[in-house]
């Protein structure tokens, strides 16, 4: 019973993914058709490749969607085993990462990296605060030294620290 429910959920997730991809490809194809097929001198225009790719991609996605809706889910490497919190977890990880990138430009590379590392480690390696703090500080320092110092990347300076 649980397995059947998981399969239905997996097929529904796959159909949603393929549906979203069909929408993106439809939008891409529509834009492709706004570009010229050929130039005034009868050479290939900028629209040839996007139109061809869009039409072919859309057709393939629709075939795959039809197959999924007909109960023939392709089930990728995680298909059956994916837990039902998969999507919220992805959203949470993406959210944490976006915060890191934003802090990168506000606090500077060193502090942002340290905070991001500390935050992530407190979730995936809980209870070892001292070790996590040492790793976070070390990671931020070493990478900053490597990229900013040796490779001359010049990361944006932060509000509180110049690096």
């Amino acid at each position: 019973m649980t397995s059947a429910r998981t399969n239905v959920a997996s097929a529904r997730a796959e159909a949603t993914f393929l549906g979203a991809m069909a929408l993106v490809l439809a939008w891409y194809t529509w834009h492709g058709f706004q570009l010229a097929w050929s130039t005034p001198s009868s050479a290939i225009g900028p629209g040839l490749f996007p139109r061809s790719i869009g039409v072919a991609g859309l057709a393939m996605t629709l075939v795959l969607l039809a197959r999924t809706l007909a109960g023939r889910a392709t089930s990728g490497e995680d298909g059956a085993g994916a837990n039902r919190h998969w999507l919220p977890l992805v959203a949470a990880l993406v959210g944490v990462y976006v915060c890191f990138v934003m802090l990168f430009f506000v606090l500077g590379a060193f502090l942002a990296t340290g905070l991001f590392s500390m935050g992530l480690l407190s979730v995936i390696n809980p209870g070892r605060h001292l070790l996590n703090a040492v790793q976070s500080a070390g990671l931020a320092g070493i990478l900053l030294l490597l990229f900013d110092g040796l490779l001359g990347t010049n990361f944006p300076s932060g509000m509180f620290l110049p690096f």
Partner: protein
Amino acid sequence: METINYLVDGLAAILTVKNLLLLSAGVLLGQIIGVMPGLGPTAGIAILLPLTFNADPTGAIIMLAAIYYGSMYGGTITAVLINTPGESATVATTFDGYPMAKKGRAGQALVIAAGASFMAGIVGAVLICVAAPLATRVTTSFGPPEIFLLVLAGLLTLVVIIDGSILLGLLSALLGFAIATVGLDVGTGAQRFTFGSPDLIGGIDFVPVAIGMFGVAEVLQALLRGEHRGPGSPVDSSGRLRDIWPNRQEVRESTGPAARGSVLGFFVGATPGAGATIASLMSYNLEKSISKEPERFGQGAPAGVAGPEAANNAAATGALVPMLSLGIPGSSSTAILLGAFLMWGLQPGPLLMEQNPEFAWGLIASMFLGNVMLLLINVFTIPVFASIAKVPLRYLATPIIVLATYGTYAINKSVLDVAVMLAAAVLGLFMRRFGMSCAALIIALVLGPLAEMSLRQTLIISDGSLGIFLERQASVVLLACLGAIFALPFAISRIRRRLSASSAKPSETDEPKLPTPLG
């Protein structure tokens, strides 16, 4: 005999303490750069180019060439250990290198890769000396139709070798092509899918997408699976670090593929535009096709590491042939090398070997020494790099994500690249979950502009007629190869099925599990 004399002269020219130090530094720095996610040979040469400004032209080019093949191998290290190819040429190495690492044989996979790379480097250097004029003669007859067919062959090879649905593989490749169309259209100068953003005019770079799809997505997927809770890591580290040497069977299984990959890779690499990616994929498919146990491929077969590794390193050497002899860069890395040549007032092309023989042959001679150094450094550093496998995921995840972010930002100092990397990571998670191929997307993204440009040139030459592909001898040969690439796995599978069916007749209940052409 003349060639040997030139080579000896070249060797004498580079055998100075300063040049040897530059060579060693180049190999080591290249390897370090190659290990960093996203910083492959192209980025490595570009970033380290200023370091060579104080050296003389010969020393500078020797160092840059050493960075080039050092970083090629560095990409292999990450491909094997964390399933993150440093650049597209090492994508094929992940197919079996990472499964080997997961089985606790990371050190062995890296030694096999180092040995194959060394063999390829030496074979490549010999071939440059002996067969460069011949290879140059062949590739000069290649025009846009042949280059377009070569690109198709590379992609078809990839789609054919993907485990799972061909339709999903093709869709993944089309997505890569679609991303490649973003930016300025090279033919007409029209902007496509840029929506007025100046940051998108240059297109979407392959590197952030590759870092996101292979580096960050891999870590996120492992975290989502809860692997950080266990004592293990993405790589099974049960093997002792001292046990880095492959056993006799692994050596035996790797020697043939490495030799074949060396020769194949060199000639594919010598074809302008084809490069190490196509060479490594062709080698992988070749080895899988002729193997008696194709089902082992993708599960950690040593031949799946040795063949592509030899091919991509030999292709890196082969790519120097059109650059040295024709002045045409065969890849983005050799394009930067070409820029460095011009910076020092040297014009690569047919006259280079005549006017600056000590320089051209010095570079070729340095490849022999460089590959010996690469092998020695590799053997000594493999335990160091393989020790990454002993670190649990909970300690590796954050550094990988941060390193990927820093590496992505360092390329163009662009926050858009970081956003592209994140988007690619999320897309990669979904693609993996639903059985699509990230590798096909990446390769198509890399080859997309070349495919479009060569098709455009082909149709200009032929006044819009596709018949040109059947009118040119080289195109016809390549079309036949294309058909063979597609048909070969199916044909072999059918023959195997027939053979197995006839041998299984006495006991019909004991039906063997037969490999399919798609894995």
